[in-house]
C-alpha cells in the first residue's frame, strides 16, 4: 500500500506542474492588474511603468512563470523601477513553498489563504455534514418506501431544489428569512457576515450566521446526494444476500443499516471523496452573497483584479487537494472493502 501511495504521489507532481503552466498561461490573459489599482482614479502612466518593472510584470511570460515556480533569488531584479536591474530577488518560488505576494495587498499569498481557509471549512464542512445526514435519511426512506406518496412528494421537492440555481436560493432565503421576517416583526436571520458586531465573534454567533448560507448550499447538494443514495440503496436491496438476510429472520433495522447501507456506502464514499477537495475552494456564489469571508470570495475578489499570485495560489491548492484526496479516497475504499487490493 505504501508503495502505491508513493507511486501515486510521484505521478501527481508532473501533473501539477503541467497544470500550473496551463493555468499560468490562462492567468496572463486576465487583464492588467495595475489598470484598476487606483480604483476610480486612473493609474498614472508613469506610475504604471514603474510598477510594472518593480512587480516584474514587464518580464516575458516564461520568465514570470519561472520566477513563480522557482523564485528569483538567482537573478537581479529592478527593485526601484528605473529600468536597471539592481539587486537579487527575494522570491523563493512555489516549489520552495513561497506562493508569492499579492499584487493588490502586497501581503504573502500563504498568509491570505491561511486567513480564509478556516472560514471556508467551517461553512463547507457544516454544509457537507448537513447534506450527508439529510441525504442519508431521505435517500434511505425513499428507497424503503419506493413510490409511496411521501416518496413521490420528496422526489418532486428534491428535483425542484436541485434545479434551482444557488444564487436564487440564497437571495430568496435572505429576502424571506431576514428582510420579510424583520418586516413582519418575527425573529429573523442575519443577512451578511459571520457575526453581529454588537455581540462579537462567538461560536453561537458564527453558528447563527451560518444558518442561511448552509441551507442554501445544502439544498442543492443534498437533493443530488439523496437521489444517489436512493438509487444505490434500491440496487443493493434487490440483491440476493439481502433476501437471504431477510429470510434468516434478521431484524429489519439490521438488514437495512448493516447489510444494505454498508454496501451502498461504497460508491457514496467515492462521490464524497471527489467533492471534499473542492471544499477548500469555497462556495464562490454563496460566500459572495452572504459576505462570508472564505476562499471563494478571496478567489473572486482577486480574479477581478487580475491578482495572478493569489488566484494561482488558490487554484494550485485546490489542484493539489484533488490529487491528494483521490489517493485518500482509494485508501479508504480499500479500508472499507477488503476485496480491494492495490498491490
Amino acid at each position: 500500500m505504501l508503495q502505491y501511495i508513493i507511486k501515486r504521489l510521484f505521478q501527481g507532481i508532473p501533473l501539477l506542474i503541467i497544470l500550473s503552466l496551463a493555468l499560468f498561461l490562462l492567468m496572463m490573459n486576465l487583464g492588467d492588474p495595475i489598470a484598476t489599482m487606483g480604483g476610480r482614479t486612473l493609474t498614472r502612466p508613469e506610475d504604471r511603468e514603474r510598477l510594472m518593472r518593480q512587480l516584474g510584470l514587464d518580464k516575458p511570460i516564461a520568465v514570470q512563470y519561472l520566477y513563480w515556480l522557482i523564485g528569483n533569488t538567482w537573478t537581479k531584479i529592478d527593485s526601484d523601477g528605473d529600468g536597471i536591474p539592481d539587486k537579487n530577488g527575494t522570491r523563493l518560488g512555489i516549489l520552495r513553498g513561497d506562493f508569492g505576494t499579492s499584487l493588490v495587498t502586497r501581503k504573502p499569498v500563504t498568509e491570505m489563504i491561511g486567513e480564509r481557509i478556516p472560514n471556508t471549512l467551517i461553512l463547507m464542512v457544516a454544509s457537507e455534514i448537513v447534506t450527508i445526514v439529510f441525504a442519508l435519511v431521505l435517500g434511505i426512506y425513499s428507497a424503503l418506501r419506493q413510490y409511496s406518496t411521501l416518496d413521490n412528494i420528496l422526489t418532486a421537492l428534491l428535483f425542484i431544489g436541485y434545479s434551482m440555481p444557488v444564487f436564487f436560493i440564497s437571495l430568496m432565503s435572505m429576502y424571506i428569512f431576514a428582510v420579510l421576517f424583520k418586516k413582519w416583526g418575527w425573529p429573523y436571520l442575519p443577512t451578511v457576515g459571520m457575526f453581529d458586531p454588537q455581540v462579537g465573534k462567538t461560536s453561537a454567533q458564527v453558528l447563527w450566521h451560518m444558518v442561511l448560507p448552509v441551507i442554501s448550499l445544502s439544498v442543492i447538494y443534498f437533493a443530488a446526494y439523496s437521489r444517489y443514495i436512493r438509487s444505490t440503496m434500491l440496487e443493493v436491496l434487490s440483491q440476493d444476500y439481502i433476501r437471504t438476510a431477510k429470510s434468516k429472520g434478521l431484524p429489519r433495522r439490521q438488514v437495512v443499516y448493516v447489510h444494505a447501507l454498508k454496501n451502498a456506502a461504497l460508491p457514496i464514499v467515492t462521490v464524497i471523496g471527489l467533492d471534499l477537495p473542492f471544499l477548500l475552494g469555497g462556495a464562490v456564489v454563496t460566500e459572495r452573497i452572504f459576505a462570508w469571508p472564505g476562499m471563494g470570495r478571496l478567489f473572486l475578489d482577486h480574479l477581478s483584479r487580475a491578482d495572478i499570485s493569489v488566484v494561482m495560489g488558490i487554484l494550485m491548492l485546490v489542484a493539489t487537494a484533488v490529487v491528494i484526496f483521490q489517493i485518500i479516497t482509494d485508501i479508504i475504499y480499500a479500508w472499507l472493502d477488503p476485496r480491494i487490493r492495490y498491490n
Partner: protein
Amino acid sequence: MKRNLNILLSLVVLAGMILTACGGAAATQAPSSNATEEPSTSATEAPAPTEAPAENKVATFIWTQEFTTLSPLYASGWFTTTTQQFWNCWAWLYDETNTPFPSLVTEIPSLENGGISEDGLTITMHLRDDIKWSDNEPITSEDFRFTWAMTVDPKNTVNSTYPYDKVSAIETPDPQTVVMKFDAPFAAWLILWKGIAPAHILQPVYDADGTLDNADWNNNPTVGCGSYNFAEWESGSFARFVRNDNFYDEPAKINEIFIRFVPDDTSQTNALVAGDADLGLFVPYSETPKLKEAGVTIMTEPSGYNESWFFQVSEEFSHPAMLDVNVRKAIAMSIDFASFDRDVNLDVVKVPGSFWDSLPFYNDPAVQPYPYDPEAAKALLDAAGWIDSNGDGTRDKDGVEFVIQHGTTTREVRQELQAVAQQQLAEVGIKLEILNYDPDIFFGSYSDGAPVYTGELDIQEWSDAPAFPDPDIYYWLCSEIPSAENPSGSNSFYICDEELDALLQLQATQLDPAQRQETISKINQIFHDKVYWIGAWQDPDVWAVGSRLSGVKFSGVSPFFNITEWDIK
C-alpha cells in the same frame, strides 16, 4: 466495517466542531472593553440577549470593496484612502461644502498669510503644538518629511508617487515648521498631506529592511493619529476601529466603528434594509426607493466625478466626421441624457454641463449642457455635408459611412446608456457601434494595446474627475499623447489643441485662485465650444445612512471630517 464507519463519521463531526471553535470562539471579543463576554444584545434577536452596556455604541459601516492596505503611503482607491480618515490624520480637512479648514496646521498657507512665497516655489506650514500620535508621541515636522521621503523613495513600491513627486525638498527648521520646496509652482498643492506616517515607528523598519514594503504597520497600524485607533482587521470579513481616547481634538461619541466587507450592492442593500448596517455608500440609484422605504436616508455629496464622454479628435485615428466640431455638437444634441438620468438614474443625479461641475468656483460662469434637440442636430449634420445619399438609413459623405465606435467598461448602467445612445443616434442617421471591456482591459496601458489607446474608439466613456478639490487636469496636454516613444502618455483622445495646451499648462502653475479661476473658465469654455467632452451624469458619492445615526455630514474630499460628532440615537 460498522466500527470503521463510526470512526470516520466521528472524525468528520469532530473536525467540524474543532473548525467551528477555531474560527468562531472568541477570536474577537465583544467590541469594546466594557462589553460582556457572552453574547448580549443581538440585532437579529438570535442568541439570547443578556445585558447590553448603554454606553457601548457601535456603528456598522458596509464597504462593498475591502481596502487593500492601511498605509497612507501605499493607499490608492476610494475605500483605502477613505478608511484612513478614521485612524490617520490630514493636514487640513474639508467640510460639507468641500471648503478646507486646518486640522494639523495652525492655518492653511496662502499668498496673503505668507505661507506661499511670491514665486510659488516655497510653501511653509506651521503645525499645531498639541497634536500627537496615539502613543502620545508628538506629531512633528519630521513625520511630514518622512512621509514625503518614503513616498518618493524608489525602494518603496507605492502605487503612486503623485503629488509628492512635485515636491523637490522638505526642510524642517523646527518640530512645528514644514517648508516645502518646489522646482516649479505647483497649483494643486492642497491635495498633499492626506495622511502621514509616524517616523518614530517606521524609520527603524526602513533602516533595517531598506524598504517599507513589508512593514507590519502597513496592515496593522498600532499607532495612528485619528479620532479612532485601529483595533483589528480580518480580511474579507471586517475591520474594527475603537475610539482614540488620546485624540488631540474632541473625542468621538461613538465607541467603535465596525466595517463589514460585503461583496456587492445587493448584499449591502439587504444589510441596510434588514438593519444590519448603519451606513453604506455608492448605493445604486435603482436601490434608493427601496432603501428610503426602509427608513434609510440617502445623501449625495459631490466628489468631482462625472460620467463622461471623451471625444477622440485625431487626424490619424478618428472617423473623419469627428474632426468637425459641428458634427460633435450634433452628437451632443442627439442624446437625451436628461431623460436617461430621470428614468434610469431615478433623478438622483443631473446632467453636468462642465468637467468642473462640482467645483462651482471654477465652473464660473457655469457652462450648461447641450440641449436635446435632434432636429437641430440633423440640421448641423446636413450643413456639414453628412447626408444619407444611398438611402441605407446612415449618413455618409464622400463615400464614407457615418459609423463610429463607442467603448466603455461592462458596468450595467453604461451599457444601458450605450443602447439608448445607439438608438437616438440612429434616429439622426449616425450608426453607433458599441463595445464593452472589463475595466482591467479597458484601462490597460498603451504598451498592452488597451482599447482606449488603439485609436479605434471615437468616443470613450468612464467616470472621471479633476484632481478634486483641485481643478487640475492633464490628460489633454499635447505632451501626453502616447506613442512608441512616449508609451506612458495619457492623452488617449489624441487631441492636441495649442490654445488648450497652453491654458492647461498655465493653470497648473497658478497659485492665485482668482487668476486660476479665470484660466479654468477659458478651458471650460473650450471644452464646451469644441465639444471635447460631454457629461452624461454627475457621479457624486451616494451615502445610505441608517436611522440610528445622527449628526452625520459628509464631504466629497474628506468624507468623515466630522465623524467625532456622529452619534447613535
